[in-house]
């Protein structure tokens, strides 16, 4: 198990998942009741989502959380 990552270092592929659905950041934000700025910051790896928001996004995209947010504590997690 590695050291804890600094804030904003959990990599993700939220942008890919969103674009695959053809949604804008604003549309995605409304679907998960968050702000567009939050979605933008998460996609830019500038902010880690709260656990409920991460699960909400995963449920929306019908994917396991770790297929959107890569676990930095496991080998190969930060792809």
């Amino acid at each position: 198990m590695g050291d804890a990552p600094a804030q904003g270092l959990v990599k993700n592929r939220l942008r890919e998942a969103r674009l695959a659905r053809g949604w804008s950041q604003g549309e995605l934000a409304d679907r998960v009741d968050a702000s567009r700025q939050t979605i933008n910051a998460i996609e830019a790896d500038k902010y880690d989502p709260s656990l409920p928001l991460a699960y909400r996004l995963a449920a929306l995209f019908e994917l396991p959380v770790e297929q959107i947010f890569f676990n930095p504590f496991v080998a190969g997690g930060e792809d």
Partner: protein
Amino acid sequence: MAVERHQKKIWKAGGAALLAALVVGLASGVVIVAGQGRVPLVVIVLACAALTGAALLATTPWWRRLDHMARDAHLTAWYWGASFGGGVALLATIAASGVRAPLFQGAALVFLAQVAAYGVCWLGWWAMRRPKAS
């Protein structure tokens, strides 16, 4: 540029909170003016605490509608920004007027009240998160 539904909800709740806070502010003004010299200080303090609490309660819908990141921004800004601003103001007040001046005493009272309320809030936050005894 389209405004997201989430943002509209925040603005509505924020507007309502601001309006409620203004009403409470006006009511506080009436209480303070009416109470000066005629009502015991403890009653004035309790009335002001109730009115300030009401103003904060009025902002609850706005606070609950904010997402985690927006709340985080406010909490971070309050801790670092407000602490810094308050510290500078307190020290500058001492430098400019000395510790015996009413200006400094007022500033110190605000600071002490904030520290006390911070402590109560901090303890309450942890107390609410204690696991129930099995």
